[in-house]
């Protein structure tokens, strides 16, 4: 059985620095898969290669066994992989609802002729329903008309996910979704991710909050200095000597 996502020997060099070095792992359909590692381990760079933001220096990204590495980001998105960004990246000048509407772009392709002639009413209504349900899912239902830039940090993180979810992707890449959330928000968000997963969305999650990672993930890949370090379920990773060593070396605690 092919996995939903597989990276083979994935490598990214920036000049003399090898940010990701021969990384291999697989993400199974229906799982929440964690990708962890100390600061600067290369997690975001890995996301950038999977999502098509960077072209890998070497190695491959396979989606359902098909190579997608090197495709531009919008092509990767159209194949069903959508990502969020580590630093809240939103359309700050647009309303919350408009942000979510942009997320529906792939499902309800704008058609300029239909728009001028007013023949796209049904598509617009469906897009609106989709956008609203995505906001509702992430608890942003009452904030539709706010400017995205005015939201609290936690709401901004949630909106980033709502925009991604609005396209109903097969695989969603979340880069540190819990930063800036208080414990209560984190707990709620974990619940939403479980629901998302139960609805059939596979999640690849980068996160430093070990409690969240251990509580959510079916499988965890740990990397350090760009290299694969260990893989396994939460309990294996928690007790893995190399992982503990990497984090203590990086002055971080494993919960």
């Amino acid at each position: 059985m092919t996995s939903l996502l597989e990276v083979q020997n994935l490598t990214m060099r920036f000049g003399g620095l090898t940010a990701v070095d021969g990384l291999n792992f697989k993400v199974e359909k229906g799982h929440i898969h964690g990708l962890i590692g100390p600061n600067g381990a290369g997690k975001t760079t890995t996301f950038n290669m999977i999502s098509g933001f960077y072209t890998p220096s070497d190695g491959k990204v396979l989606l359902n066994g098909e190579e997608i590495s090197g495709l531009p980001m919008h092509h990767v998105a159209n194949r069903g992989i959508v990502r969020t960004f580590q630093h809240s990246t939103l359309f700050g000048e647009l309303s919350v609802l408009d942000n979510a509407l942009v997320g529906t772009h792939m499902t309800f392709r704008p058609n300029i002729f239909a728009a001028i002639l007013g023949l796209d009413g049904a598509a617009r209504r469906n897009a609106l329903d989709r956008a609203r349900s995505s906001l509702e899912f992430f608890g942003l239902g009452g904030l539709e008309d706010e400017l995205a830039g005015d939201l609290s940090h936690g709401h901004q993180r949630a909106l980033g996910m709502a925009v991604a979810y609005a396209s109903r992707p097969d695989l969603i890449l979340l880069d540190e979704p819990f930063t800036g959330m208080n414990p209560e928000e984190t707990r709620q968000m974990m619940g939403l991710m479980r629901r998302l997963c139960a609805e059939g969305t596979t999640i690849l999650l980068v996160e430093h909050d070990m409690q969240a990672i251990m509580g959510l993930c079916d499988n965890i890949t740990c990397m350090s200095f760009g290299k694969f370090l260990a893989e396994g379920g939460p309990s294996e990773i928690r007790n893995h000597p190399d992982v503990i060593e990497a984090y203590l070396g990086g002055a971080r605690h494993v919960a």
Partner: protein
Amino acid sequence: MRNFLIWAVVAVALIILPNLVSFSQQEVLVFLTINILVVASYRLLTLTGEWSLGHVVIMGVGAYASALVTKELGLWVPLGILVGGASAAFIAFLLSYPLFRMKGFYFLIGSFAAGEIIRLLWKRFRDPFGGAKGIKGIDPMPDFSIGIYQFDFFEPVSYFYFSAVVVALCLWILWRIEKSPVGLTFHAVHWQDKLAQASGVNLRSYRTLAFVIASGFAGIAGALLAHYIGTINPNSFDVEVMVFVLTWAIVGGTGTFYGPILGCIVLTILNEIVLRELGLEQTRPLIYGLILILSILFMPNGLESIVQKFTRRKEAK
């Protein structure tokens, strides 16, 4: 119903307006109408965050194309105007390949260079473009009658009515585009292209789309101009005119659909009433430059911000 009434009043006012002013002011009304289309189409491009210095030259492409197909091939003028728009859109499409390898400042400079190259081609090739002297004796709109009104295109009033209808139709289309999901995508491309692309938006296609549409409408404006003044040359579309368009857009503000239009109207009135009366016509570029600087310093969001202040206050009451 209320909207319909407002538009009916506007229409009646526009029908009456040219009959209240002098002949030379009627001519100004025609230019103003055409310039409104130029500046409104320019705004569509700015929605994606790109500012071009070639817009007026693209307008010229429409003027030349329409002048040539009507003069040389004998095409009916209204069709020629459409051909003008289509030609401008097509040239913009071709230019998008080199130009959209660049963004921001580099796009600005690239668009200027592309425009100058087109102007050089007009100057260089006397056949068919007429060289530096340009094209003279461009076919006027053929007269026609709609029963209650006889269009006589030697009269500026008739041409004002004709161009007002064409421009109104174009503005309506531009407005529909802006308020559609396509318009939203333009905004998305502007404000955060990374997230737009991660949401599946093909950035290049949308930038090109905005550029092509904006250019098409600029081409129609150019064609309207050509068939009115009857003679065009490369200097009709030089950078000085581009500076006027930029000034209208910036003074009016590009945050709303009506901002640039407002800028165009206010500055034209200022120009005609104040400058011409005071005999300061010659200093127009200087005064425009001054207005541009002052408005950037003291009114960074344009005239539209003043309008918004008033409408907001009314809402609050």
